[in-house]
């Protein structure tokens, strides 16, 4: 069992890096920080690769099932008599796959950032936060129990907050970081309640015993629940809300587009490849519970995923901010993964959706990180975020152009690239179980191809605006990650993913579903062709199209006014009608009561103090009268006894 004890190094090393850099953030020279941070994350990467190799190839499946290992474990906190929270590392299919994703992208982003952040004052701070994030994310993916996930869930949230607000002097960045944290925090509340409910009924946090179908019989799940849902359904839906918050599912997606205020490498690492898929990972972790204990919760996951996917894709078509297009694309792709999980079943061929979803998570991490890093390179070169002010860049930034094109093709589902394979699996899984989701996903596939190529053509082709400085390809530090990721975007599609990842641990043999492949390829080609026609050369076609569907365009352009609804609810309802009245109530009613008591006392004593007039004779008069009264009473008392 202890073959994996060294895995504690994987989160620990970045933590060390964080501590070393943050305590010396105004002392270390930039070079030293860069070397330290990259070295630490590189080491983690190597250890992760070794872990994966050991797990998948050296150990392999036992009796046809991939075993789960606890690499390292200690009791962190005792909650009550029989519940306790452990910290440790869990080694199984999903966590090892995520290790690869996180460390690969993190390493690429570290290298990229050396170039990207070179002139920034907060260079050391940036790398410290990257280390902190890597630590939290790695601990999250290797969590042995759902509570550990929650802990690091919060920590990745705060790393994200710190990195979005990295340019803290920019009000929009501050607002975005605040929004991201609060929206996810709101979702986390439900996550926490879900954990509380689940652990109360199941009596354990531990994934191994929690997700083992053989244990389900012994769980005490009786009891009432809200809205006619069973206890596990309620708990799992609550947990899913937490995941939806982090993974920007509708209607909790509003923070992700704003989160693009952070530096581009951050968007690539946190808001495209790793943290935002934590929700998917969470559902995948508890997949056995979703699939077997509460199919209705899983169905909800599927519908929410599919809807979000469609919704975000529609919005993405209209956006003009480079990174926001990508952000909505990310939301849409995560919706894809969620939908993939939602249409899956537990075990065997039926578990295709699970496998596909993880596969898509994997490939998406690569090409989406690449897209963001490419976007970062472009923005770095032209100093604007608006795609209206870009164009014709293929001539100036050759390498960037090619890598970006590869990524675009991958995400559009061009045959032969990674996105094609993973997307195909999801569509197949949807086709097998839920036609509604299937059609939605098919539409999204077309939309994705369209908006991605719209973006691509508008940035790299179309008219060329006047550039003050001639844009050029970035330096080596930024190009190398682009090239590596481009290679990965092509190659990862050929991994026989089902061999490694499956819902029940048994290797799954997958094959290309040709009929599905043809349909989805046709759909994406349609999208690409449309974008080609509309945007490759400057034309007035797009304007006319917009004019013909102006209402829809306006709504989509304004993201269906979801932000405005939130603003209205928070500012006009919660702040204005709850918080402000409470503040007023506290000052005037509660405190007023206290002050009123004081006022009554003071006023009474003011009235009484007139008696204390300083007039000796009045005192004497009172004295004599009182003596008389008292002695009269005394005499009366004596006479009557």
């Amino acid at each position: 069992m202890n073959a994996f004890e060294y895995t504690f190094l994987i989160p620990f090393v970045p933590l060390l890096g964080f501590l070393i850099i943050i305590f010396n953030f105004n002392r270390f020279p930039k070079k030293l920080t860069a070397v330290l941070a990259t070295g630490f994350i590189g080491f983690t990467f190597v250890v992760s690769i070794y872990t994966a190799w050991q797990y998948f190839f050296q150990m392999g499946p036992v009796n046809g099932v991939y075993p789960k290992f606890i690499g390292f474990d200690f009791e962190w906190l005792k909650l009550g008599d029989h519940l306790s929270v452990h910290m440790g590392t869990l080694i199984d299919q999903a966590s090892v796959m995520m290790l690869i994703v996180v460390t690969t992208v993190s390493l690429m982003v570290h290298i990229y950032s050396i170039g990207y952040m070179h002139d920034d004052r907060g260079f050391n701070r940036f790398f410290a936060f990257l280390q902190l994030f890597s630590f939290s994310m790695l601990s999250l993916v290797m969590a042995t129990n759902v509570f550990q996930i929650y802990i690091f869930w919060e920590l990745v949230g705060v790393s994200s907050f710190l990195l979005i607000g990295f340019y803290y002097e920019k009000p929009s960045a501050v607002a975005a970081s605040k929004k991201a944290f609060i929206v996810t925090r709101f979702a986390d509340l439900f996550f926490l309640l879900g954990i509380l409910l689940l652990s109360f009924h199941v009596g354990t946090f531990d994934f191994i015993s929690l997700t083992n179908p053989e244990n389900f019989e012994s769980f005490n799940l009786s009891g009432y629940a809200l809205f006619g849902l069973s206890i596990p359904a309620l708990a799992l839906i609550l947990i899913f809300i937490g995941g939806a918050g982090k993974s920007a599912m509708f209607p909790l997606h509003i923070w992700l587009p704003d989160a693009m205020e952070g530096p581009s490498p951050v968007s690539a690492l946190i808001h495209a490849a790793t943290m935002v898929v934590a929700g998917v990972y969470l559902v995948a972790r508890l997949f056995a519970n979703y699939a077997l204990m509460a199919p209705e919760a899983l169905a909800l996951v599927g519908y929410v995923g599919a809807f979000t996917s469609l919704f975000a894709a529609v919005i993405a078509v209209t956006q003009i901010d480079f990174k926001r297009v990508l952000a909505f694309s990310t939301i849409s792709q995560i919706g894809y993964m969620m939908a993939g999980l939602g249409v899956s079943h537990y075990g065997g061929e039926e578990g295709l959706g699970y496998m596909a979803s993880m596969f898509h998570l994997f490939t998406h991490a690569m090409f989406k990180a690449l897209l963001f890093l490419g976007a970062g390179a472009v923005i770095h070169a032209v100093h604007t975020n608006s795609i209206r002010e870009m164009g014709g860049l293929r001539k100036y930034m050759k390498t960037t152009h090619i890598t970006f094109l590869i990524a675009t093709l991958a995400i559009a589902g061009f045959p032969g690239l990674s996105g094609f394979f993973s997307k195909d699996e999801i569509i197949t899984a949807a086709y097998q179980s839920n036609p509604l989701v299937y059609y939605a996903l098919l539409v999204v596939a077309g939309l994705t191809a369209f908006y991605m190529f719209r973006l691509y053509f508008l940035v790299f082709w179309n008219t060329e605006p006047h550039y003050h400085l001639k844009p050029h390809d970035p330096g080596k530090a930024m190009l190398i990650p682009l090239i590596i990721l481009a290679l990965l975007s092509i190659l990862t599609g050929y991994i026989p993913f089902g061999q490694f990842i499956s819902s029940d641990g048994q290797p799954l043999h997958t094959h290309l579903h040709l009929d599905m492949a043809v349909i989805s390829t046709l759909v994406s080609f349609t999208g690409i062709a449309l974008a080609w026609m509309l945007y490759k050369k400057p034309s007035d076609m797009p304007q006319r199209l917009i004019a013909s569907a102006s209402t829809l365009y306006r709504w989509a352009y304004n993201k269906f006014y979801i932000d405005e609804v939130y603003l209205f609810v928070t500012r006009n309802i919660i702040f204005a009608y709850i918080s402000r009245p409470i503040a007023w109530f506290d000052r005037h009613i509660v405190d007023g009561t206290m002050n009123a008591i004081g006022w009554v006392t003071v006023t009474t004593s003011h009235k009484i103090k007139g008696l204390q007039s300083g007039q000796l004779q009045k005192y004497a008069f009172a004295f004599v009268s009182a003596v008389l009264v008292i002695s009269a009473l005394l005499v009366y008392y004596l006479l009557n006894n």
Partner: protein
Amino acid sequence: MMSITFHQAVFYFFSAIIVIFSILTVTSKRILRAATFLLFVLLGTAAFYFILNYAFMGALQITLYAGGIVVLIIFSILLTSHVGERFEPIGWGKMIASALVSLIGAGFTLYVLLNADFIPTQAPLPDASVKNIGTALLSYERNGFVLPFEVVSLLLLAAIVGAIVIARKEPHDTENPNNE
């Protein structure tokens, strides 16, 4: 028939003096007259002491009260008031209220006193000679008063010092320069 003995006549005479002059003391409008009336009351009191056979007490009353205190009072009156000064009339409310309290008090006290059963004694009268008094004052045995005597002597000393300190003109009292 009620026959009035000589003793009784004397007693009633002095009683009348005490009561009448007491009332005059507190009602007179001229302060010097009030002081004079007080003197008569004190002398009447002294007469009571003589009647009750406490000659030493009576003598003390005359010398200390009539001779000492009243003179002191008259001095202070001369220091602080004009001789012919008349008091402003007292407000009706105050006068009636005070009179009422006094009358009720007097009535109540008298009611209690007259209803009380004092047990007369047949014991022989004390020998209130100066010698006896002196002995008792300096005796520390039973019925001796040496301790209060000493305490009172200290008190007197304190009073003398206190009176001097209080009445002394403050050396830096520049607020009232005309206060010679």
